[in-house]
């Protein structure tokens, strides 16, 4: 164990994907900072990761909808992390969001506005320092809007575009931005849903894929955790709109 270990910040630390990602970094020898709105449940994951790996793990309060508090949050961290991973998201209820616009706005803000604003703060500080990596967990749902989840999908599409633009802006400075489109993952968000086995990843697979994409020698820009998803999404993307609009998806 070396003194100058790298530090990663995981935003959305009560999520199953987030827990697995932080665990993958801790196992690889990183210090971990966890941020969540529910500090008590995040502490449970912090203790778990620290006990399993011996890594130092700190917990910090953050609500992704409170944009005013973001600069204070970033400056209040013990160190500016080397890597920041944001897994915050909220699927919402599509039918409800079609009539209750506050609910739609919450889904937009949780998946798009909040994560984008927060990662923007880190981008500026990373640029000033000259180093840092940013990972955002978006979704294949953002690749093409579907009648059954386009509120969530639209928000993720916005986040995907934000990450791609940010990558473009930071690339000349050698900073890495990774977009993660996990496909189906067996987590609390999908509990009770019938998921196709081949297309469904375990949270630990996502964690390992993120670590490899963000920190591996051969970095990656956009990852689909299970490679089959790339094919699935290019087929879905290729369906002409006049046909697509009539499909029940």
């Amino acid at each position: 164990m070396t003194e100058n270990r790298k530090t990663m910040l995981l935003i959305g630390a009560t999520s199953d994907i987030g827990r697995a990602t932080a665990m993958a970094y801790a196992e690889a020898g990183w210090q971990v900072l966890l941020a969540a709105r529910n500090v008590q449940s995040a502490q449970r994951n912090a203790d778990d990761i620290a006990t399993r790996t011996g890594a130092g793990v700190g917990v910090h309060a953050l609500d992704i909808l409170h944009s005013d508090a973001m600069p204070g949050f970033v400056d209040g961290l013990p160190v500016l992390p080397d890597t920041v991973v944001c897994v915050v998201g909220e699927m919402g209820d599509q039918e409800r969001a079609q009539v209750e616009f506050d609910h739609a706005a919450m889904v937009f803000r949780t998946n798009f506005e909040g994560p984008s604003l927060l990662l923007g703060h880190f981008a500026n500080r990373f640029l000033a320092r000259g180093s840092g990596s940013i990972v955002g967990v978006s979704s294949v749902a953002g690749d093409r809007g579907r009648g059954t989840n386009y509120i969530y999908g639209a928000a993720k599409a916005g986040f995907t575009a934000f990450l791609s633009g940010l990558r473009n802006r930071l690339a000349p400075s050698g900073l890495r931005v990774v977009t993660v489109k996990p496909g189906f993952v067996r987590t609390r968000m999908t509990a009770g849903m019938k998921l196709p086995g081949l297309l469904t990843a375990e949270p630990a697979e996502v964690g390992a894929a993120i670590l490899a994409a963000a920190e591996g020698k051969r970095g990656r820009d956009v990852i689909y955790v299970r490679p089959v998803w790339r094919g699935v999404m290019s087929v879905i993307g290729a369906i002409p709109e006049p046909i697509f609009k009539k499909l029940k998806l």
Partner: protein
Amino acid sequence: MLLEGWGRYPRFESEALGLGDPLAVPGLVASSRGIIARGNGRAYGDAAIGTRRTLGALGLDRMKAFDPQSGRLTVEAGMLLSDILAAFLPRGFFPPVVPGTKLVTVGGMIAADVHGKNHHRDGSFGDHLEQLTLVLPSGQAVACGPSENADLFRATVGGMGLTGIITGATFRMKPVETGWIRQRTIVAKDLAGALKALDDSDAATYSVAWIDCVARGAGLGRSLIFAGEHATRQEVSSERPDAPLLPLASPGRLGVPFDLPAMTLNKASVAAFNELYFRRGARNGDKPFLTHWHPYFFPLDGVDRWNRIYGRRGFLQHQCVVPPATAHAALAEILDRITRSGKASFLAVLKKMGAGGSLMSFPMPGYTLALDLRVTDETFALLDQIDRIVVAAGGRLYLAKDARQSRQTFEAGYPTLGRFNDLRSAIGAPGHMASHLSSRLGI
């Protein structure tokens, strides 16, 4: 949801609910009746199937704290033993007691007060517990340990989930220099030889005997006795200089992907298997050699879902313990019946036990014999006969393996049942905490 134990017999409908957050357990427990906790479902029979609801504890899977000075580890109760091994063996710590599979939860290890190959020396898992957190039927969460709410502690360790839901526990891991076991194999030509070899191995940390259940007559009870010690760093580096000192488990590659026709386990194939196993073991002779911890402690975990090998009707494990004075006569009679029935089990394991643990714990001083039998129409009558031998010898059956014993057999084996029932009444457990095992046995 249709639930079954590891033996796949019996099966019952029960509403399955997953526990994810320890703070949510009290409300859930207080508001439902006919409930029982379920860990990883490795109990063989009906112990982890609630009469109405079954609360799955696998989501309570967080570690809380570890102190490398004392080895003290605090975890949530749904933590798998395999996770503990993966996190701590590389750091030079081993659990104080492990059963024959690593795919069990800490809650299940407490509720069954499991024993390992070191029971004769180190006692059962409950003997190494410093504290546990129990959610009572009322929903109240209480801490208990050997000197704190001791009555509740003694009823919960070995209490098969019938006092409430265990949410967390603290126990001590032991330091080991390596992940290797220095194993010695002793050959015993009959049952008396096997019991003597186990007695002679009292000083060994680990000991267990594998009985050839096909041998009859003068060879009845012929056995291989495996004694083991945690190997030192020096032993490993001199005998296996290239081996890693603290190796992790290699994931099992074999698997039983579907229900094998029950035919595969017919008499001839078991006899051939036993012959092979016995010869291979005997060839290693008395010379100690190094074994990787995983096959030594968890040989069956190398084969995924091996319980399917017995076919759709499932199988029964019969595990009894009998006191030293009656052991030879009783075990000889049991083995004789088993071998003569031609229903020789795939596995017959004999182990010496030390002092007993808690109120309803299975272990007591004596010898424990475990047999696997495929479920057929005749199996039940055969086991009833064997139970009569066990009761006459002053022994008892292990609840974690049981799926069929009668109330009479149970009551004869557990004279402390009255005290257990009194304590259950005092905390409002009757009718509230209820498994198919407890309703079958009238607990």
